[in-house]
């Protein structure tokens, strides 16, 4: 079964693990201490997160530390980014359009055909 980022973050425990290690490198035992579920279950979640590249486990002496790999989450943010692009472009265009129609009628109103100002 192929692992991907979207599948990895579909599980609330895995999301919690990601948040935990996003801030700092965390010892694997410490990760497990944060959850009520069994250690093997946590190990499995960490393995899934590792397989899809969201976290990296490094050996430091006798301890193993989890650290996050932020670039991998870009797959998720890129997905949203395309919508940000669409709407940013459209709303900018709306702004330009409104500016255009605002300046149009205004200049017409200032001076009437006979050159006198409106009363």
């Amino acid at each position, binding site marked *: 079964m192929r692992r991907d980022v979207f599948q990895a*973050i579909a599980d609330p425990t895995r999301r919690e693990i990601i948040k935990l290690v996003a801030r700092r490198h965390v010892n694997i035992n410490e990760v497990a201490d944060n959850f009520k579920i069994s250690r093997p279950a946590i190990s499995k979640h960490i393995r899934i997160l590792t397989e899809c590249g969201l976290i990296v486990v490094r050996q430091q002496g006798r301890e193993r530390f989890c650290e*996050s790999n932020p670039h991998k989450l870009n797959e998720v943010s890129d997905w949203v980014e395309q919508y940000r692009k669409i*709407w940013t472009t459209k709303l900018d265009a*709306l702004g330009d*359009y409104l500016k255009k129609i605002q300046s149009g009628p205004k200049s017409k109103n200032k001076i009437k055909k006979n050159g006198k100002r409106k009363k």
Partner: protein
Amino acid sequence: MEKEKNEPFIIERTYDAPLKKVWKAITDKDEMKHWYFSLPEFRAEVGFEFRFVGGPSPEKQYLHICVVTEVIPEKKLTYSWRYDGYEGNSFVTFELFAVGNKTRVVLTHRGLETFPAGNPDFAKGNFSVGWTHIIGTALKEFSEKK
């Protein structure tokens, strides 16, 4: 059990134009074509369906199918937004607020998580859960770390 909170996509702008003008610009097809999409017809009426072709890039063009679901004149306009031939459905809402002579527009796009990510490798069904959640929380923390 953690409560799922799907954070929709939100973008805001304030325009130097009166609310009536902004409402007309987002609901009148003759004005919409100048900034949005060219539609043969548009009516701000619940149940009105419109379609257009568009996409993020010239090679990625999709037929959009939209149905108006909510209208509060000069305040709020919502329509569904989906892609022909793809699963999923989302909702786009324009909300207008008068700020003196200016108008604040809040655009909300809900339900993006119902779309497949456009990558056949992504497991179906898994896509819909959690990514919006993570964007609102962990992603911020990730990006602050960069």
